[in-house]
């Protein structure tokens, strides 16, 4: 076992205030959305009923939120405890990835005041892919918070102690006296159940997110429309999960001036070429099998997007196949970035770019639509920074 420790330091830094500004601007736009309807802030239409909120915030956001899932498989299922230091930061990213995807959905859905209909047996439609996705994502978000709870419980008293003297009187007495130590021990005894459920649920909904587009039939271009959508979405979500862990580890080593976790990252990235290889074999095998291989070159702009998407997969495959590259933080950073872009582009292509509802329909996100997404990402980063500074998430640095 390794030790984790709050980073400490000021929370209200300059970047933090910039992020606060972005978040508040998004809040303002969201208020406008609730008063005047979705048309007031988005460019979505009856032809393109889903925009970047679904494609970016939900699809890309939760796939990046697969860090916790990917590392949990490695540590708890495959019993590779040498990676245990990655668990907490990865889980934290997942907590925010999923929670904010959930918030985006509540901004996006039209009849946001009755989402509980999903759990009413007389309304729930088990044939609906959306039902499976919604039920799974809701449950998993809850499970993630439980998985992350030990870090919050462990660090609670310490975080409380860092509240400046003059503000302490504003903290309610209940919160001041609260000591989660005993519940922490109890939760730790049962946490394995939640970890196991936390491995099952993403396996289910990350694949189902791909299945969502199957019913769009011929509205989705044949380069993307396939019965293998669920499997491709699942594998690419796992690769994105590992990538974000590597990406964040390198970034936080640089940003917080901590030693690189290169040894561990080198081993994690050794899995990647296998996963990417499997993904590409299925991706191209399926095109050949369906006789759509020619469409790779004859679909104009979509051919370009298809090739770009897959080149972004091939680059990390080639880079990470070499053991020397896997020990270079620079190469690790580049290949994880490329994989994140590849998975994101795959999702954008399958849900927006290659989606064609018919002549006359176009979509490009509105400024306010983009700013709401920015606000959500800004809030995510703010919360991440605040938590790693006050709670034991990142591994204790040996030297710095």
């Amino acid at each position, binding site marked *: 076992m390794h030790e984790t420790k709050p980073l400490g330091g000021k929370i209200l830094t300059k970047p933090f205030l910039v992020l606060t500004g972005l978040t508040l601007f998004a809040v303002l736009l969201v208020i406008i959305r609730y008063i005047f309807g979705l048309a007031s802030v988005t460019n979505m239409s009856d032809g393109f009923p889903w925009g970047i909120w679904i494609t970016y915030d939900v699809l890309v956001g939760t796939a990046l939120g697969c860090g916790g899932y990917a590392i949990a498989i490695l540590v708890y299922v495959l019993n590779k405890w040498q990676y245990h230091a990655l668990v907490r930061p990865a889980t934290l990213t997942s907590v925010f990835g999923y929670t904010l995807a959930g918030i985006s959905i509540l901004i996006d859905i039209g009849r946001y005041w009755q989402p509980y209909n999903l759990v*009413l047996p007389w309304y729930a439609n088990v*044939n609906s*892919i959306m039902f499976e996705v919604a039920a799974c994502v809701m449950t998993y978000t809850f499970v993630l918070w439980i998985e992350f709870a030990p870090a919050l419980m462990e660090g609670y008293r310490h975080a409380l102690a860092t509240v400046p003297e003059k503000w302490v009187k504003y903290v309610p007495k209940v919160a001041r006296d609260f000591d989660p130590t005993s519940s922490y021990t109890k939760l730790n005894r049962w946490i394995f159940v939640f970890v196991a459920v936390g491995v099952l649920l993403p*396996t289910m909904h990350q694949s189902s997110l791909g299945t969502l587009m199957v019913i769009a*039939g011929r509205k989705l271009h044949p380069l993307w429309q396939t019965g293998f959508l669920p499997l491709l979405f699942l594998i690419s979500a796992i690769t994105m999960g590992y990538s974000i862990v590597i990406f964040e580890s390198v970034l936080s080593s640089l940003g917080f001036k901590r030693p690189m976790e290169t040894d561990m990252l080198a081993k994690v990235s050794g899995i990647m070429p296998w996963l990417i290889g499997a993904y590409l074999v299925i991706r191209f095998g399926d095109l050949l099998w369906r006789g759509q291989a020619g469409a790779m070159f004859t679909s104009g702009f979509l051919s370009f997007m298809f090739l770009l998407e897959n080149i972004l997969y091939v680059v990390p495959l080639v880079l990470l196949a070499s053991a020397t590259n896997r020990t270079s933080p620079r190469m690790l950073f580049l290949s994880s970035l490329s994989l994140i872009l590849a998975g994101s582009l795959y999702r954008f292509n399958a849900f927006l770019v290659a989606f064609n509802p018919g002549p006359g329909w176009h979509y490009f996100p509105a400024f306010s639509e983009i700013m709401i997404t920015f606000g959500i990402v800004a809030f995510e980063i703010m919360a991440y920074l605040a938590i790693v500074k006050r709670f034991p998430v990142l591994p204790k640095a040996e030297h710095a």
Partner: protein
Amino acid sequence: MEIKRRDFLKVSAAGGLMLAANADPALAAREPKQRLPEALGILYDATVCIGCKVCVSACKQHNDMPPDFSSTDRTWDDPLDLSSRTLNIIKLYKNGTGEVKDRETDGYSYIKRHCMHCVDPSCISACPVSALTKNPENGVVRYNKNACIGCRYCQIACPFNIPKFQWDKAFPQIKKCQLCDHRYATGGYSACCEFCPTGASIFGRVDDLIKEAKRRLSLTPGEWAHYPIGRVDSKHTSYRQVTPYINHVYGEKEGGGTQFLMLSNVPFEKLGLPPLTDKPDAAVSEGIQHTIYKGMIAPIVFLGGMIYAVYQNTKNECE
């Protein structure tokens, strides 16, 4: 202990594979749903339509729909396409000089668009909260705003882009044609058919409508024939000279069949109708999902394996 754990991992990995893997969609697809014997629908004959748009107006009136303005002076209802304000529309196809009615080249044709009331609807399969349902007797596809969460997956799923969303409303709904089923109890039927002066749109049992469509296709252009007005079984008919048809009933088989059927002399794809295969997308989508989640066996096996593995691994590590 070690061997046992490995076996467990294998079993759960198999569960995981069952979860993840899926066969070719053609093999996984569930059986398409069949036409209901008492299904009700509409037959639209573009060669009989004169483009008067009485059906558009009658639809608005009998469904309490607001006008939809496309011109700047906003004098009268002039929708350009279906929307949350317009459930039924007559559109125009025009080619070249547009001289002759119902001709593909240098001609024009009308086309009527509204919900197709599919036999195996994608929207119903897609809706997570059963806000869209198919009447078990007459097959009308209805919308229930009290169930709807506004996720708009029905819009993604519909191959005809029929469900429309109220983008400009704070408390929006989905709007679509419901075949005027609120008018049946008082002896009425779809307003677009009831008020159509030429018999271009006729209402009735789908079986009868298919028979009527086939009868028209068997007529010889140039001969004189009776065309029922209002309902397919109406005694009130128009007697007119038959013009040529493309030998195809759109909706008889498209996407697994629809309850709104069409005849025309201009290829349907030119009129904006998608060239669908006979296989409903809902059958493919549900087939994949049911293969993966059959009896929830795979997820349960997988979860069991995961709980065991995580328990063993955390126990050993903590000791």
